[in-house]
């Protein structure tokens, strides 16, 4: 499949699944439970499905292996965000959160994936 078309399909399906999980997060309560859906595997599900279908299982497997470290970085980033969002507000707090994810992910990339 044409790489640009593949990216477009990934974007469409990824965005759609994010909306679906976001709607689930909107109707459930309390906020702590709704937050679980903020880390739902919407992007991962959409993209891995398309990768497996268009590029094959081995590629999906490699990406899933990378996702392990991404998930660990996500836990670390959310933990940082509990502090940073409280102290700095949502916008700056999530910027710190994303920076934390990048740091942890970069370390994991260097240490665990050679």
């Amino acid at each position, binding site marked *: 499949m044409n*790489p640009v078309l*593949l*990216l477009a399909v*990934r*974007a469409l*399906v990824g*965005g*759609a*699944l*994010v909306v679906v999980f976001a*709607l689930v*997060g*909107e*109707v459930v*309560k*309390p*906020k*702590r*439970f709704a*937050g*679980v859906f*903020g*880390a*739902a595997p919407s*992007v*991962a599900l*959409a*993209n*891995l*499905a398309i990768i497996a279908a268009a590029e094959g*299982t*081995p*590629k999906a*497997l*490699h*990406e*899933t*292996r*990378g*996702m392990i*470290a*991404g*998930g660990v970085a*996500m*836990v670390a980033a*959310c*933990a940082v*965000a*509990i*502090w940073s*969002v*409280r102290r700095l*507000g*949502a*916008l700056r707090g*999530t910027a710190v*959160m*994303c920076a934390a*994810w990048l740091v942890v*992910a970069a370390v994991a990339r260097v240490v665990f994936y050679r």
Partner: protein
Amino acid sequence: MSDVSDSLFGIDVAKLSKVSPRELAIRFAFGAGISVVSGSSGIVLGSIVGGMLLAFPAIAPATLTLIEKKDGNTAAVHDVGGAVFGGIGLVAFALVGAYLFRRLPDPVVLLSCLAAWSAVSVGVYVLRGEKLLSLPAVVQGRLPGCRRADPDAPGRQGPPR
């Protein structure tokens, strides 16, 4: 064990009417954006990096900013506290996928991954809510509803003491 459903779970379908198309469009855009970034990174930097980005908190800035604007800072903090459990579920999702891809048909693998995420994230959330699981102090947050105002109540609320 206390009545789990009263304090830990609830559904309010009426809230759907308060979700604006603009909010959904923003979330769609962030989801689409990270999908493109992940795909492009996978091409340029390899599948491992592309895969890592599948767990990047791309949606968080939009979601938490919207929540803070509508329901206050405390609600946003509680929301991201819940995301810790979702993140733990993401690790489970990836571990199951890494094990099952090439062993089972791809659709079965993806459903299994989703089931693993659901079971682990909700399970850890319930165990934590029932105080059956200790998490490191750095990831602890207060549970909603006890001893102070409901974080789901509208209006701006200051940071907790």
